[in-house]
């Protein structure tokens, strides 16, 4: 039987190589997509770490400060002209500089923070007056950038003479980079070398405290009601639809709500952590409710039946048995919600938390910035030195988030139970 028509198996075999190629191609595309996303992630982290790690060090100048008694003669110690002490020390290093404008550019090498540093020292120890001391004092941000290699020498930010002075100081070993304590202890500042994140960290802390205090009890109570008590009726459906929709409403809309209602109607203070916390609480509420409901659902009915069987009331069964067993899941969801609230910026812009705030907030009603807003503000600043500080602040924020999410993972691993 010489059939001209090829057998099916032959047709299949002929196409097999092509089909296998397509299979491999498809598989590689999938793997490529994952690797590409991970590459993005790596690129993001590398560029932020690469920009940010230099902010951990701050260039300082070694100056010989003479706490001349005549400067403290006529005024209170706190009001003395400390910047003159710094200037005199610089003039003493370069006695050949006499011109007025030249002297001014010489004085510009040191940060205005150097004077604050001296003031702090003298206020702590009056006996310094009249003494002569070698001290490391912060340099101006342009000097800092030059030493770190972020600033072109010919960039025009520093003049030829200034560059020569810096070179001479470097040759004498009077320029060095030290750990940047200011960055972790100070509030915001217009001067990059004086700016720190502590104010923003405190602001974030107060804001999150308000958020947690409101959204956790409210969220858990809502979840318990919906999961354990709510009858199936239109009212319950309405609540559920609302929660699901709120979970997807853009965060900036919550900011509009805060602006119109909390600030407009209730007259609450602008820029205050308490308002920020309220807005973020409303925003995280759906997350916590949904996570808590899932946790409550995962408690097996046998536990409930056993509790009811020995005579517990429904409320006792929930409070004494179901809720404690669901608690790890609820806490995991809460931590994830808090982490999201910590990184949230947009709604806080709406309620005025973008103000330039130098002081470190001490209460829920003090004007404050939070970490992400601080990043946003610094990212907008033109000085080159703020780029590395923005990146460093980002690193701090990411560190907090990693710790929180890590905590959530540990909690889940440790207490997760399969029934």
């Amino acid at each position, binding site marked *: 039987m010489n059939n001209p028509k090829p057998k099916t198996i032959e047709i*299949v075999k002929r196409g097999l190589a092509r*089909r*296998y190629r*397509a*299979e491999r191609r*498809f*598989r590689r*595309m*999938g*793997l490529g*997509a*994952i690797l*590409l*996303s*991970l590459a*993005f*992630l790596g690129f*993001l982290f590398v560029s932020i770490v690469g920009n940010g790690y230099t902010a951990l060090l701050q260039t300082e100048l070694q100056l010989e400060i003479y706490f001349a008694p005549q400067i403290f003669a006529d005024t209170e110690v706190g009001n003395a002209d400390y910047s003159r002490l710094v200037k005199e020390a610089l003039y003493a290093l370069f006695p050949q500089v006499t011109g007025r404008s030249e002297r001014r550019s010489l004085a510009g090498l040191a940060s205005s923070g150097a004077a604050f540093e001296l003031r702090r020292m003298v206020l702590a120890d009056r006996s310094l007056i009249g003494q002569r001391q070698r001290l490391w004092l912060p340099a101006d941000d342009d000097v800092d950038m030059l030493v770190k290699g972020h600033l072109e020498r010919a960039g025009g930010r520093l003049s030829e003479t200034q560059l020569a002075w810096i070179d001479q100081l470097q040759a004498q070993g009077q320029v060095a980079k030290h750990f940047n304590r200011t960055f972790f202890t100070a509030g915001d500042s217009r001067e990059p070398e004086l700016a720190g994140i502590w104010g923003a960290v405190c602001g974030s802390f107060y804001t999150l405290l308000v958020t947690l205090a409101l959204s956790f009890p*409210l969220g858990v*109570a*809502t979840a318990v*009601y*919906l999961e354990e008590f709510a009858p199936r009726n239109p009212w319950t459906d*309405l609540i559920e639809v*609302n*929660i*699901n*929709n*709120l979970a*997807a*409403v*853009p965060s*900036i*809309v919550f900011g*509009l*709500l805060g*602006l*119109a*209602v909390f600030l407009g109607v209730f007259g609450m203070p602008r820029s205050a952590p308490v308002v920020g916390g309220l807005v973020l609480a*409303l925003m995280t*509420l*759906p997350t916590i*409710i949904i996570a808590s409901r899932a946790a409550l659902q995962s408690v097996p009915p046998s536990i409930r039946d056993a509790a009811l069987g020995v005579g517990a009331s429904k409320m006792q069964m929930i409070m004494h048995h179901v809720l404690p067993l669901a608690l790890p899941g609820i806490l995991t969801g809460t931590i994830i919600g808090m982490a999201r609230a*910590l*990184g*949230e*910026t*947009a709604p806080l*812009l*709406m309620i005025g938390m*973008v103000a330039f705030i130098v002081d470190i907030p001490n209460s829920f009603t003090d004007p404050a910035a939070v970490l*992400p*807003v601080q*990043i*946003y503000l610094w*990212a907008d600043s033109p000085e080159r030195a703020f*780029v590395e500080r*923005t990146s460093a602040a980002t690193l701090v924020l*990411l560190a907090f*988030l990693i710790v929180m999410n890590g905590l959530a993972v540990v909690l889940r691993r440790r207490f997760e139970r399969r029934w």
Partner: protein
Amino acid sequence: MMLLTLLLLLTLSAYYLGLRRAVSVAGGPEEVRSLHSRPPYYGVLTAIWCGLPALLIYVAWQMLEGRLITYLALAQLPPELQTLSPARLNLILNDIRNVIAGNIAEGQISPAIQAAAEHYRRLQTISSIASGVVVVAAALAGLALVHRRIHLRLRARNHVERLVLWLLVACSTVAIFTTIGIVLSVLYEALRFFKSVPLTEFLFGLQWSPQMAIRSDQVGSSGAFGALPVLAGTLLISGIAMAVAVPIGLLAAIYLSEYAGKRFRGAAKPLLEILAGVPTVVYGFFAALVVAPLIRSAGQTIGLDVSSESALAAGLVMGIMIIPFVSSLSDDMINAVPQALRDGAYGLGATRSETIKQVVLPAALPGIVGGVLLAVSRAIGETMIVVMAAGLTANMTLNPLKAVTTVTVQIVTLLVGDQEFDSPKTLAAFALGLLLFVITLGLNIIALKVVRKYREQYE
């Protein structure tokens, strides 16, 4: 503050009094079995009745106190001051408050205000004393009422549980009030905006320049409020983001659910989730600092003029942010396709990729479309990336290399900073907010419907 501490102490002692009373009514610790409920419930019931009404009175008092005192203080002002405009009256009120706070040295201000400040201070003292008396009286009354009624047959547990249930119900309504609050606040301001700018101009106008002139003869004094260019920019950037996120996210989900081994999946999935956990402000900073200059210089080398705030940079980074969102939703949907469908395809001799392309994906398509719609709604509402990396001027263009603006960028630029609440400029932000809310709400409702319908199909 002191009053609240006192109230707390009273409530705590009410608990103990109720507990002791219950035990003594029963006839000693041995006989508590004869009570209807366990003794602590009697304590809790007493504490609730002692603390709750008093607390409500306190809160109400605090809310009304300020307005009442202000009203009374202003009524005492000399008549020539009372006829001033509300704005001037506010200044005077501020003076009075500053005198009380000690911010202004006495003697720098007129005697009338001095007297008013005295009066204000007196009213404050009276109010705080009165509120203290009323709150404590309410607490004691509640305590006494319950304390006297405790006897063997009092169903304390049922009372407490009913109160707790009502508390739970009250908590669950917060979500509804939040939605009502959002809708009302945005709608109210938007309606005021539509009084000065007609709705049709807002929806179909082709010009957006919300700057209002200070003087009437200035150039561009009228301001133009046509939202179409803003909307077009939003769609352009979201479109770019989806063009990045959907293919990558979908392919990643397919690989993870169909090909990857358990260990690879266990490692890659959390790493992808990190992309979703990075705050948007970090993405914005990344876009503005790294991606935008990169694209700009890449464009220059091939001779293209790329704006430094190009839609491409913002869209690209937004796409990266949305990848995990798309991939985890698609992953769920692909996993929901029954194994039997796959086995059928394998049985007919299909390769894995053929099975995926011709069986699994069509089966999962409705769910994936729902997930993509959710992702679109997230892209449209995304704020920080575009605020930091996209432009401010509204351009009606489809060129991804040009700078465009988005709805969220406009809301932020219009509302950040100090300005009066009733200029069309600020109100326009609320109109845009309403637009944003309606669009995202619509997308979400459709997406949830689609997803739910799809899930039911295989259950």
